[in-house]
Protein backbone atom coordinates (compact mmCIF):
# COMPACT_ATOMS: atom_id res chain seq x y z
CA UNK A 1 0.00 0.00 0.00
CA UNK A 2 1.53 3.32 -1.07
CA UNK A 3 0.51 6.55 0.49
CA UNK A 4 2.21 9.70 -0.71
CA UNK A 5 4.38 11.56 1.78
CA UNK A 6 2.95 14.88 2.83
CA UNK A 7 4.68 18.21 2.34
CA UNK A 8 3.05 20.55 4.83
CA UNK A 9 0.76 19.04 7.38
CA UNK A 10 0.36 16.69 10.30
CA UNK A 11 0.88 13.00 10.90
CA UNK A 12 -0.95 11.67 13.92
CA UNK A 13 0.79 8.44 14.82
CA UNK A 14 0.41 5.72 17.48
CA UNK A 15 -3.36 6.04 17.57
CA UNK A 16 -4.88 3.07 19.38
CA UNK A 17 -6.23 0.69 16.73
CA UNK A 18 -9.86 1.56 16.08
CA UNK A 19 -9.68 5.16 17.35
CA UNK A 20 -8.78 6.84 14.03
CA UNK A 21 -12.35 7.57 13.04
CA UNK A 22 -13.07 9.24 16.40
CA UNK A 23 -10.17 11.60 15.79
CA UNK A 24 -11.20 12.04 12.14
CA UNK A 25 -14.68 13.09 13.27
CA UNK A 26 -13.41 15.32 16.07
CA UNK A 27 -11.07 17.22 13.74
CA UNK A 28 -13.86 17.37 11.15
CA UNK A 29 -11.44 16.09 8.54
CA UNK A 30 -14.33 15.14 6.30
CA UNK A 31 -14.81 18.85 5.57
CA UNK A 32 -11.25 19.31 4.23
CA UNK A 33 -10.49 19.20 0.53
CA UNK A 34 -6.80 18.32 0.98
CA UNK A 35 -5.54 14.75 0.90
CA UNK A 36 -6.24 12.88 4.16
CA UNK A 37 -5.08 9.30 4.66
CA UNK A 38 -6.29 6.97 7.37
CA UNK A 39 -4.21 3.88 7.91
CA UNK A 40 -5.90 1.31 10.11
CA UNK A 41 -4.35 -1.61 11.93
CA UNK A 42 -0.76 -0.87 10.91
CA UNK A 43 1.88 -3.01 12.62
CA UNK A 44 3.40 -1.33 15.67
CA UNK A 45 6.16 -2.71 17.90
CA UNK A 46 4.80 -0.55 20.76
CA UNK A 47 1.04 -1.11 20.42
CA UNK A 48 0.82 -4.30 18.36
CA UNK A 49 -1.61 -2.59 16.03
CA UNK A 50 -2.10 1.12 15.53
CA UNK A 51 -3.93 3.63 13.39
CA UNK A 52 -2.29 6.60 11.65
CA UNK A 53 -3.81 9.74 10.13
CA UNK A 54 -1.92 11.85 7.59
CA UNK A 55 -3.30 15.30 6.78
CA UNK A 56 -1.71 17.29 3.97
CA UNK A 57 -2.76 20.63 5.39
CA UNK A 58 -1.99 22.87 8.37
CA UNK A 59 -4.91 22.75 10.81
CA UNK A 60 -5.80 25.66 13.02
CA UNK A 61 -7.02 23.64 16.04
CA UNK A 62 -5.64 22.81 19.48
CA UNK A 63 -4.28 19.34 18.90
CA UNK A 64 -3.63 18.91 22.64
CA UNK A 65 -7.34 18.18 23.01
CA UNK A 66 -6.64 14.93 21.15
CA UNK A 67 -4.88 13.79 24.33
CA UNK A 68 -8.27 13.28 25.92
CA UNK A 69 -9.50 11.13 23.04
CA UNK A 70 -6.34 9.02 22.96
CA UNK A 71 -3.40 9.79 25.31
CA UNK A 72 -1.02 7.41 23.45
CA UNK A 73 -0.87 9.42 20.22
CA UNK A 74 2.16 11.17 18.78
CA UNK A 75 1.76 14.33 16.72
CA UNK A 76 4.31 15.03 13.96
CA UNK A 77 4.38 18.43 12.28
CA UNK A 78 5.71 18.28 8.72
CA UNK A 79 7.13 21.30 6.89
CA UNK A 80 8.48 21.12 3.34
CA UNK A 81 8.48 17.36 3.56
CA UNK A 82 10.56 17.30 6.77
CA UNK A 83 9.39 16.52 10.29
CA UNK A 84 10.04 19.71 12.31
CA UNK A 85 8.27 18.79 15.53
CA UNK A 86 7.20 15.63 17.30
CA UNK A 87 5.26 15.63 20.57
CA UNK A 88 2.72 13.89 22.77
CA UNK A 89 -0.32 16.03 23.47
CA UNK A 90 -0.54 17.44 27.00
CA UNK A 91 -3.95 17.09 28.57
CA UNK A 92 -5.45 20.61 28.51
CA UNK A 93 -6.83 22.09 31.74
CA UNK A 94 -10.14 22.72 30.03
CA UNK A 95 -11.81 21.22 26.98
CA UNK A 96 -14.70 22.95 25.29
CA UNK A 97 -17.26 21.39 22.96
CA UNK A 98 -15.21 18.24 22.39
CA UNK A 99 -17.39 15.99 24.48
CA UNK A 100 -20.95 16.55 25.55
CA UNK A 101 -22.28 16.23 29.08
CA UNK A 102 -24.48 13.15 29.20
CA UNK A 103 -26.12 13.93 32.55
CA UNK A 104 -29.82 14.45 31.77
CA UNK A 105 -30.12 16.59 34.90
CA UNK A 106 -27.37 19.00 33.76
CA UNK A 107 -28.37 22.53 32.69
CA UNK A 108 -26.72 21.80 29.32
CA UNK A 109 -29.48 19.27 28.65
CA UNK A 110 -32.07 22.05 28.30
CA UNK A 111 -30.01 25.07 27.23
CA UNK A 112 -28.72 24.09 23.82
CA UNK A 113 -26.51 27.13 23.25
CA UNK A 114 -24.34 26.53 26.34
CA UNK A 115 -20.79 25.39 25.59
CA UNK A 116 -19.99 21.95 26.97
CA UNK A 117 -16.96 22.68 29.12
CA UNK A 118 -15.02 20.06 31.08
CA UNK A 119 -12.26 20.80 33.57
CA UNK A 120 -9.30 18.51 34.19
CA UNK A 121 -9.69 17.17 37.74
CA UNK A 122 -7.08 14.40 37.85
CA UNK A 123 -4.25 14.34 35.31
CA UNK A 124 -3.08 10.87 36.40
CA UNK A 125 -6.50 9.34 35.90
CA UNK A 126 -7.26 11.39 32.78
CA UNK A 127 -10.40 12.58 34.57
CA UNK A 128 -12.49 15.51 33.39
CA UNK A 129 -15.70 16.78 34.96
CA UNK A 130 -18.45 19.01 33.61
CA UNK A 131 -17.98 22.58 34.83
CA UNK A 132 -21.71 22.88 35.54
CA UNK A 133 -22.90 19.61 37.07
CA UNK A 134 -19.49 17.99 37.84
CA UNK A 135 -20.44 14.75 36.09
CA UNK A 136 -17.51 12.67 34.89
CA UNK A 137 -16.72 13.01 31.19
CA UNK A 138 -17.15 10.04 28.91
CA UNK A 139 -16.66 9.76 25.17
Amino acid at each position, binding site marked *: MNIDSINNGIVIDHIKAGMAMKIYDFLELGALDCPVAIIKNAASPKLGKKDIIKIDSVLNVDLNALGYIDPTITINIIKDGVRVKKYHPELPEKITNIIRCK*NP*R*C*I*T*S*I*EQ*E*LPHVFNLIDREKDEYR*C*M*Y*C*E*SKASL
Partner: protein
Amino acid sequence: MRHITSITDLSTAEIDELIATAQDIIEQPQKYAEACSRKKLATLFYEPSTRTRLSFEAAMIELGGHVLGFSEAASSSAAKGESVADTVRTVCCYADIIAMRHPKEGAPTVASLHATVPVINAGDGGHNHPTQTLTDLLTIKMEKGRLSNLTVGLCGDLKFGRTVHSLITAMCRYPGVRFVLVSPEELKVPSYVKIPLKRDNVRYDQTTDLCSVLPELDILYMTRVQRERFFNEDDYIRLKDSYILTPEKLEYAKADLSILHPLPRVNEISVAIDQDPRACYFRQALYGKFIRMALILKLLEVTV
Protein backbone atom coordinates in the same frame (compact mmCIF):
# COMPACT_ATOMS: atom_id res chain seq x y z
CA MET B 1 -17.33 40.11 43.80
CA ARG B 2 -17.93 36.54 44.95
CA HIS B 3 -20.46 33.88 44.01
CA ILE B 4 -21.30 30.85 46.17
CA THR B 5 -22.32 27.83 44.10
CA SER B 6 -20.81 25.12 46.34
CA ILE B 7 -19.76 24.82 49.98
CA THR B 8 -16.23 24.27 48.66
CA ASP B 9 -16.22 27.90 47.48
CA LEU B 10 -15.75 28.82 51.13
CA SER B 11 -12.61 28.18 53.18
CA THR B 12 -12.89 26.81 56.71
CA ALA B 13 -11.92 30.26 58.03
CA GLU B 14 -14.71 31.86 55.99
CA ILE B 15 -17.25 29.32 57.25
CA ASP B 16 -16.17 30.03 60.83
CA GLU B 17 -16.47 33.77 60.15
CA LEU B 18 -20.01 33.33 58.76
CA ILE B 19 -21.02 31.28 61.80
CA ALA B 20 -19.57 33.93 64.13
CA THR B 21 -21.50 36.67 62.28
CA ALA B 22 -24.71 34.61 62.47
CA GLN B 23 -24.21 34.13 66.20
CA ASP B 24 -23.71 37.87 66.61
CA ILE B 25 -26.91 38.53 64.63
CA ILE B 26 -28.79 36.15 66.96
CA GLU B 27 -27.44 38.00 70.00
CA GLN B 28 -27.85 41.56 68.69
CA PRO B 29 -30.39 41.59 65.84
CA GLN B 30 -31.02 45.36 66.19
CA LYS B 31 -27.39 46.05 65.22
CA TYR B 32 -28.07 44.59 61.76
CA ALA B 33 -31.59 45.95 61.23
CA GLU B 34 -30.53 48.57 58.66
CA ALA B 35 -27.34 46.92 57.39
CA CYS B 36 -28.74 46.30 53.89
CA SER B 37 -31.00 49.32 53.71
CA ARG B 38 -31.89 50.13 50.05
CA LYS B 39 -30.32 46.86 48.85
CA LYS B 40 -32.41 44.38 46.89
CA LEU B 41 -32.28 40.58 46.88
CA ALA B 42 -33.73 38.78 43.86
CA THR B 43 -34.99 35.28 44.64
CA LEU B 44 -35.10 33.40 41.34
CA PHE B 45 -36.82 30.13 42.20
CA TYR B 46 -37.48 27.92 39.20
CA GLU B 47 -39.05 25.28 41.42
CA PRO B 48 -41.06 25.38 44.63
CA SER B 49 -39.44 25.75 48.02
CA THR B 50 -40.73 26.69 51.45
CA ARG B 51 -37.82 27.07 53.82
CA THR B 52 -35.07 28.17 51.48
CA ARG B 53 -36.96 30.91 49.67
CA LEU B 54 -38.76 32.25 52.72
CA SER B 55 -35.61 32.19 54.84
CA PHE B 56 -33.69 34.10 52.16
CA GLU B 57 -36.47 36.66 51.94
CA ALA B 58 -36.84 36.94 55.72
CA ALA B 59 -33.05 37.30 55.99
CA MET B 60 -32.97 40.26 53.58
CA ILE B 61 -35.99 41.93 55.20
CA GLU B 62 -34.40 41.61 58.65
CA LEU B 63 -31.28 43.27 57.27
CA GLY B 64 -33.43 46.24 56.23
CA GLY B 65 -33.32 45.33 52.53
CA HIS B 66 -35.98 44.53 49.95
CA VAL B 67 -36.92 41.42 48.03
CA LEU B 68 -38.13 40.79 44.48
CA GLY B 69 -38.28 37.71 42.31
CA PHE B 70 -40.39 34.74 41.33
CA SER B 71 -41.25 31.49 43.07
CA GLU B 72 -41.85 29.22 40.09
CA ALA B 73 -40.58 29.06 36.53
CA ALA B 74 -44.13 29.49 35.19
CA SER B 75 -44.29 33.05 36.50
CA SER B 76 -41.03 34.11 34.84
CA SER B 77 -39.82 34.46 31.26
CA ALA B 78 -38.34 30.97 31.59
CA ALA B 79 -41.85 29.84 30.64
CA LYS B 80 -41.29 31.62 27.29
CA GLY B 81 -37.99 29.85 26.83
CA GLU B 82 -35.63 32.52 28.12
CA SER B 83 -32.19 31.22 29.04
CA VAL B 84 -30.76 31.41 32.54
CA ALA B 85 -28.03 33.71 31.23
CA ASP B 86 -30.50 36.21 29.74
CA THR B 87 -32.72 36.17 32.83
CA VAL B 88 -29.74 36.83 35.07
CA ARG B 89 -28.39 39.64 32.88
CA THR B 90 -31.80 41.28 33.18
CA VAL B 91 -32.19 40.74 36.92
CA CYS B 92 -28.75 42.26 37.52
CA CYS B 93 -30.26 45.55 36.29
CA TYR B 94 -32.69 45.52 39.21
CA ALA B 95 -31.07 43.69 42.13
CA ASP B 96 -27.88 43.81 44.20
CA ILE B 97 -27.68 40.07 44.92
CA ILE B 98 -29.34 36.91 43.57
CA ALA B 99 -30.40 33.67 45.25
CA MET B 100 -31.26 31.03 42.64
CA ARG B 101 -32.91 27.64 42.88
CA HIS B 102 -33.14 25.59 39.70
CA PRO B 103 -34.07 21.95 39.02
CA LYS B 104 -31.12 21.54 36.64
CA GLU B 105 -27.64 20.95 37.98
CA GLY B 106 -25.17 23.75 37.32
CA ALA B 107 -27.77 26.44 36.50
CA PRO B 108 -26.40 28.76 39.25
CA THR B 109 -22.91 28.30 37.78
CA VAL B 110 -24.26 29.49 34.43
CA ALA B 111 -25.85 32.43 36.26
CA SER B 112 -22.57 33.28 37.97
CA LEU B 113 -20.79 33.45 34.61
CA HIS B 114 -23.14 36.20 33.40
CA ALA B 115 -24.01 38.07 36.59
CA THR B 116 -22.65 41.44 37.59
CA VAL B 117 -23.93 40.93 41.16
CA PRO B 118 -23.21 38.03 43.56
CA VAL B 119 -25.12 34.79 42.92
CA ILE B 120 -25.95 32.32 45.69
CA ASN B 121 -26.92 28.78 44.75
CA ALA B 122 -30.12 28.05 46.67
CA GLY B 123 -30.19 24.44 45.45
CA ASP B 124 -29.60 23.02 41.96
CA GLY B 125 -31.35 19.69 41.60
CA GLY B 126 -29.52 16.94 43.45
CA HIS B 127 -26.19 18.72 43.06
CA ASN B 128 -25.32 21.48 45.56
CA HIS B 129 -27.13 23.38 48.27
CA PRO B 130 -24.44 25.31 50.13
CA THR B 131 -26.74 27.40 52.33
CA GLN B 132 -28.33 24.20 53.68
CA THR B 133 -24.86 23.01 54.69
CA LEU B 134 -24.11 26.36 56.32
CA THR B 135 -27.45 26.05 58.14
CA ASP B 136 -26.50 22.57 59.37
CA LEU B 137 -23.11 23.78 60.57
CA LEU B 138 -24.59 26.77 62.44
CA THR B 139 -27.18 24.45 64.03
CA ILE B 140 -24.48 22.09 65.27
CA LYS B 141 -22.41 25.01 66.55
CA MET B 142 -25.42 26.49 68.36
CA GLU B 143 -26.53 23.18 69.85
CA LYS B 144 -23.11 21.77 70.75
CA GLY B 145 -20.93 24.85 71.04
CA ARG B 146 -18.35 23.33 68.69
CA LEU B 147 -17.85 21.69 65.30
CA SER B 148 -14.93 19.50 66.38
CA ASN B 149 -14.74 16.31 68.48
CA LEU B 150 -18.23 15.09 67.62
CA THR B 151 -19.67 11.74 66.59
CA VAL B 152 -22.04 12.53 63.75
CA GLY B 153 -24.58 9.93 62.65
CA LEU B 154 -26.06 10.32 59.18
CA CYS B 155 -29.10 8.17 58.59
CA GLY B 156 -31.36 7.27 55.68
CA ASP B 157 -30.67 7.87 52.02
CA LEU B 158 -26.94 8.51 51.99
CA LYS B 159 -26.57 7.72 48.31
CA PHE B 160 -28.65 10.47 46.74
CA GLY B 161 -28.85 12.89 49.68
CA ARG B 162 -26.95 16.00 48.58
CA THR B 163 -27.22 17.54 52.06
CA VAL B 164 -25.43 14.54 53.52
CA HIS B 165 -22.61 14.69 50.98
CA SER B 166 -22.04 18.41 51.52
CA LEU B 167 -22.16 18.06 55.31
CA ILE B 168 -19.51 15.32 55.20
CA THR B 169 -17.34 17.49 52.92
CA ALA B 170 -17.67 20.46 55.25
CA MET B 171 -17.36 18.69 58.61
CA CYS B 172 -14.37 16.51 57.77
CA ARG B 173 -12.31 19.74 57.87
CA TYR B 174 -12.76 19.90 61.66
CA PRO B 175 -10.59 17.80 64.02
CA GLY B 176 -11.92 14.86 65.99
CA VAL B 177 -15.07 14.37 63.92
CA ARG B 178 -16.21 10.77 63.51
CA PHE B 179 -18.97 9.84 61.08
CA VAL B 180 -21.38 6.94 61.55
CA LEU B 181 -23.10 6.23 58.25
CA VAL B 182 -26.42 4.43 58.75
CA SER B 183 -28.25 3.31 55.63
CA PRO B 184 -29.62 0.31 53.75
CA GLU B 185 -27.00 -1.42 51.58
CA GLU B 186 -28.76 0.01 48.53
CA LEU B 187 -28.37 3.61 49.72
CA LYS B 188 -24.81 3.71 51.06
CA VAL B 189 -22.62 6.79 50.65
CA PRO B 190 -21.00 6.79 47.17
CA SER B 191 -17.28 6.09 47.16
CA TYR B 192 -16.34 9.55 45.85
CA VAL B 193 -17.84 11.15 48.96
CA LYS B 194 -15.55 8.99 51.12
CA ILE B 195 -12.38 10.11 49.29
CA PRO B 196 -11.73 13.10 51.65
CA LEU B 197 -12.44 10.89 54.66
CA LYS B 198 -9.80 8.40 53.59
CA ARG B 199 -7.36 11.12 52.50
CA ASP B 200 -7.57 12.98 55.82
CA ASN B 201 -7.78 9.83 58.00
CA VAL B 202 -11.21 10.79 59.27
CA ARG B 203 -12.78 7.93 61.20
CA TYR B 204 -16.05 6.61 59.82
CA ASP B 205 -18.13 3.50 60.33
CA GLN B 206 -20.90 2.12 58.16
CA THR B 207 -23.86 0.15 59.42
CA THR B 208 -27.41 -0.77 58.52
CA ASP B 209 -28.61 -0.79 62.13
CA LEU B 210 -29.55 2.58 63.64
CA CYS B 211 -30.38 1.27 67.14
CA SER B 212 -26.98 -0.33 67.62
CA VAL B 213 -25.10 2.96 67.07
CA LEU B 214 -27.61 5.44 68.51
CA PRO B 215 -25.99 5.48 72.02
CA GLU B 216 -22.68 6.69 70.53
CA LEU B 217 -24.01 9.70 68.65
CA ASP B 218 -23.74 13.41 69.51
CA ILE B 219 -25.55 14.42 66.31
CA LEU B 220 -28.13 12.44 64.36
CA TYR B 221 -28.81 13.83 60.88
CA MET B 222 -31.93 12.17 59.50
CA THR B 223 -32.90 12.02 55.84
CA ARG B 224 -35.80 10.42 54.07
CA VAL B 225 -35.65 6.94 52.52
CA GLN B 226 -37.64 7.43 49.35
CA ARG B 227 -39.63 4.66 47.73
CA GLU B 228 -38.54 5.65 44.24
CA ARG B 229 -34.90 4.93 45.08
CA PHE B 230 -35.53 1.17 45.31
CA PHE B 231 -35.61 -1.20 42.37
CA ASN B 232 -37.51 -3.73 44.38
CA GLU B 233 -40.72 -2.88 46.27
CA ASP B 234 -40.11 -5.74 48.73
CA ASP B 235 -36.76 -4.24 49.72
CA TYR B 236 -38.41 -0.89 50.33
CA ILE B 237 -41.11 -2.40 52.52
CA ARG B 238 -38.50 -4.45 54.40
CA LEU B 239 -36.30 -1.44 55.09
CA LYS B 240 -38.51 1.61 55.38
CA ASP B 241 -39.40 1.24 59.07
CA SER B 242 -35.79 0.64 60.12
CA TYR B 243 -35.05 4.26 59.44
CA ILE B 244 -38.00 5.87 61.14
CA LEU B 245 -37.01 7.57 64.35
CA THR B 246 -39.48 6.86 67.16
CA PRO B 247 -39.55 7.68 70.90
CA GLU B 248 -38.80 3.99 71.59
CA LYS B 249 -35.60 4.08 69.56
CA LEU B 250 -34.64 7.39 71.12
CA GLU B 251 -34.48 5.72 74.54
CA TYR B 252 -31.09 4.36 73.48
CA ALA B 253 -29.71 7.80 72.66
CA LYS B 254 -27.64 10.22 74.72
CA ALA B 255 -29.55 12.80 76.76
CA ASP B 256 -27.82 15.59 74.85
CA LEU B 257 -28.18 14.16 71.35
CA SER B 258 -29.10 16.75 68.69
CA ILE B 259 -31.47 15.51 65.98
CA LEU B 260 -31.24 17.41 62.70
CA HIS B 261 -33.23 17.08 59.48
CA PRO B 262 -33.04 19.32 56.39
CA LEU B 263 -36.87 19.08 56.06
CA PRO B 264 -39.38 18.53 54.60
CA ARG B 265 -40.06 15.49 56.74
CA VAL B 266 -42.51 12.86 55.61
CA ASN B 267 -42.57 10.05 58.15
CA GLU B 268 -38.92 9.38 58.97
CA ILE B 269 -39.15 11.20 62.30
CA SER B 270 -42.22 10.44 64.37
CA VAL B 271 -44.15 13.60 65.28
CA ALA B 272 -44.09 12.31 68.86
CA ILE B 273 -40.42 13.36 68.95
CA ASP B 274 -41.12 17.00 68.04
CA GLN B 275 -41.57 17.99 71.69
CA ASP B 276 -38.36 16.25 72.77
CA PRO B 277 -35.67 18.85 73.54
CA ARG B 278 -33.26 16.80 71.42
CA ALA B 279 -35.32 17.56 68.29
CA CYS B 280 -33.51 20.51 66.66
CA TYR B 281 -35.00 20.49 63.16
CA PHE B 282 -37.35 23.42 63.58
CA ARG B 283 -34.65 25.45 65.33
CA GLN B 284 -32.45 24.42 62.39
CA ALA B 285 -34.96 26.08 60.03
CA LEU B 286 -34.68 29.25 62.14
CA TYR B 287 -30.88 29.17 62.07
CA GLY B 288 -31.13 28.96 58.28
CA LYS B 289 -32.36 32.57 58.26
CA PHE B 290 -29.47 33.84 60.40
CA ILE B 291 -26.73 32.13 58.39
CA ARG B 292 -28.26 33.50 55.17
CA MET B 293 -28.21 36.98 56.72
CA ALA B 294 -24.50 36.48 57.42
CA LEU B 295 -23.87 35.27 53.87
CA ILE B 296 -25.75 38.20 52.30
CA LEU B 297 -23.69 40.63 54.40
CA LYS B 298 -20.46 38.95 53.35
CA LEU B 299 -21.26 38.88 49.63
CA LEU B 300 -22.52 42.47 49.65
CA GLU B 301 -19.33 43.39 51.54
CA VAL B 302 -21.36 45.17 54.19
CA THR B 303 -19.59 45.69 57.49
CA VAL B 304 -21.56 46.43 60.63
